[in-house]
C-alpha cells in the first residue's frame, strides 16, 4: 500500500499500536522514584519572600523562609458531609534514606530551635510548607533537678492541599518511667457496695505500663531498638486521626513524642484533611533521632530565630 500523508502514522501504529506496559508497576515505581527526587531537592517549601535563614544540614544547604500568614488555613468542609469511615492505621514501608540533622556545638534547647529542627525534618519527608509555628521551653535554674524541656508545633500544609494540620514534638529529658509505670484499676463503690463483695463498679481499667499498647491506642506496636522503647499508635476521635510515636530512652530518661493529625487540633474530632501529613514510620524516624535532648545543635537555634509566625507558649507556664 502506497503511503500518503497519514500512512506514517499508520505505520507507527502498526509497530506500537498494541504495545503495553504494566501500569500498576509503572505508577508505583514512579511514585517511589519521585519521592526520592523530592528529598534530593532538599528545599523546605516555607512560603514567603523575605530574607531566608540558611541552615546547613549534613553538608547540604537548606533554605528556610518565613511564613507569611499567622493562622493556619481554615478547613474547607469535607465533601459529602461527615467522613463515615476511619482509615486503618497507615504504616508505609520505611524508606532507606536516613534523615539528616545538623551537627556541631550544642546549646540549651528552646521552643524555637525545636520548631526549626522539626521543620527541617518534616520538610525532608513531605512536600509542603509550614504556615505557623508555636513552642515553649522550660528554663531550669542553676542546680535544678530537672533538665530543660521543649515543645514545638508547626501547621503543615502538604503540597496540593488547601488545609494545614499540626505536627508537634515534645522533648522531655529526665522523664521517670517508674512514676507512671502502671495506672491501678479504679473502682467506685456506692453505699452498700464493697470491694470484697465485688460489687463496686469498675471505672478505670488497668492501663498497663505507660509505654505500652493501652486501651484506645489503635494499630499499636511496641518495639525495642537500640536501647529505646518505641510505641507507635493512632487515636481516633470520631473520624479524625491522631498518629503518635512515643520514644523512651531508659538509660538517659529522655522521652520524645512526635505526633501528627488530620484534625484542626489534636484530640479533637474536627477532621479537616484526608489523613495526617506523616505516617507512623515517618514520625518514628523523627522521634528516634539523637538530635533531641536538653540541648540542640546551634544551627537549629540560629534558624529558630527565623521561623515565623511563632507563638511562644512559654508565657503561659506558671
Amino acid at each position: 500500500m502506497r503511503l500518503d500523508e497519514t500512512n506514517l502514522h499508520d505505520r507507527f501504529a502498526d509497530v506500537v499500536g498494541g504495545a503495553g506496559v504494566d501500569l500498576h508497576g509503572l505508577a508505583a515505581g514512579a511514585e517511589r522514584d519521585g519521592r526520592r527526587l523530592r528529598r534530593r531537592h532538599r528545599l523546605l517549601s516555607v512560603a514567603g519572600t523575605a530574607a531566608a535563614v540558611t541552615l546547613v544540614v549534613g553538608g547540604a544547604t537548606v533554605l528556610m523562609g518565613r511564613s507569611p500568614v499567622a493562622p493556619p488555613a481554615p478547613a474547607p468542609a469535607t465533601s459529602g458531609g461527615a467522613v463515615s469511615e476511619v482509615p486503618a492505621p497507615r504504616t508505609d514501608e520505611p524508606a532507606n534514606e536516613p534523615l539528616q540533622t545538623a551537627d556541631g556545638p550544642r546549646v540549651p534547647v528552646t521552643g524555637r530551635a525545636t520548631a526549626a529542627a522539626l521543620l527541617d525534618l518534616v520538610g525532608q519527608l513531605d512536600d509542603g510548607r509550614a504556615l505557623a509555628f508555636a513552642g515553649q521551653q522550660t528554663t531550669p535554674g542553676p542546680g535544678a533537678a530537672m533538665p530543660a524541656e521543649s515543645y514545638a508545633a508547626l501547621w503543615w500544609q502538604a503540597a496540593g492541599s488547601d488545609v494545614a494540620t499540626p505536627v508537634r514534638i515534645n522533648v522531655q529529658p529526665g522523664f521517670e518511667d517508674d512514676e507512671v509505670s502502671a495506672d491501678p484499676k479504679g473502682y467506685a463503690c456506692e453505699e452498700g457496695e464493697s470491694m470484697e463483695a465485688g460489687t463496686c463498679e469498675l471505672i478505670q481499667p488497668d492501663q498497663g505500663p505507660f509505654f505500652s499498647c493501652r486501651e484506645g491506642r489503635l494499630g499499636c506496636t511496641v518495639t525495642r531498638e537500640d536501647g529505646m522503647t518505641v510505641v507507635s499508635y493512632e487515636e481516633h476521635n470520631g473520624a479524625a486521626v491522631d498518629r503518635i510515636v512515643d520514644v523512651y530512652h531508659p538509660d538517659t530518661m529522655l522521652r520524645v513524642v512526635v505526633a501528627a493529625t488530620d484534625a484542626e487540633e489534636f484530640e479533637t474530632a474536627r477532621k479537616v484533611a484526608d489523613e495526617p501529613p506523616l505516617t507512623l514510620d515517618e514520625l518514628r524516624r523523627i522521634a528516634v533521632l539523637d538530635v533531641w535532648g536538653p540541648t540542640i545543635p546551634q544551627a537549629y537555634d540560629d534558624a529558630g530565630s527565623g521561623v515565623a509566625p511563632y507563638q511562644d507558649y512559654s508565657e503561659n507556664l506558671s
Partner: protein
Amino acid sequence: MQDTTPGADDFASFVHATGTALYRTALLLCGDHHLAEDLTQTTYAKVFAKWGRVRRSDSPTAYTRTVLLNTFLSHRRLRRSSERPVDRIPEGAADGTDPTVRLDLMAALAGLTPADRAVLVLRFWEDRSVEDTASVLGVSPGAVRTRSSRALARLRERLGDDPGLQLTTTPPASTWETR
C-alpha cells in the same frame, strides 16, 4: 484548555489513564521496550515530584509529554546510555502487519538522530502542529519544517524504494490538544 484526563487529580489514576499512550511514544523514540519503560518511569517520577502543581495545571497530560521529550533528549535521561535498533517485535504489536515492515521502520527510525526522531514522532505519531512541535522542542517552526523534511528523506532512503513504504512530505492535519 482544561485537561479532561480522567483522574487527573490522583497520580495513580493519571498514570493508568495516560501510561499506555506515553509508553508507545517512548517506544517510538527509543526503539527498545526496556529503554522505553525506563524513559516512561523516569518521566512519571519527575511528574510525581511536582504533582501538587502539575495536577492543578491546565493540561497535566501535555506537561507530562513535554517532560518525556525533554528527558529523552537530555544527556542524563536513562540508566542505560546505549540505544540500539529493535531486534524483535515489541510485545503486543498489532496483528496482521508484515513483521519485516515493522522491523524496517524501527531500524530506520533508530538511524535518525534523537532530535530528528523526536520531530517525526511529534509530527506524525502525536499529530502535533509545526508550532506545537517547535514549542516543545524549543526550536523555531522553520527548524521543525527543515528537520521534518530531512528526517523524512532519510527515512525514505533507509527504507529504499518499496512503493508500499513511500512517504509524502505533507504532514497530517493537527489533532493535538492545544495547551
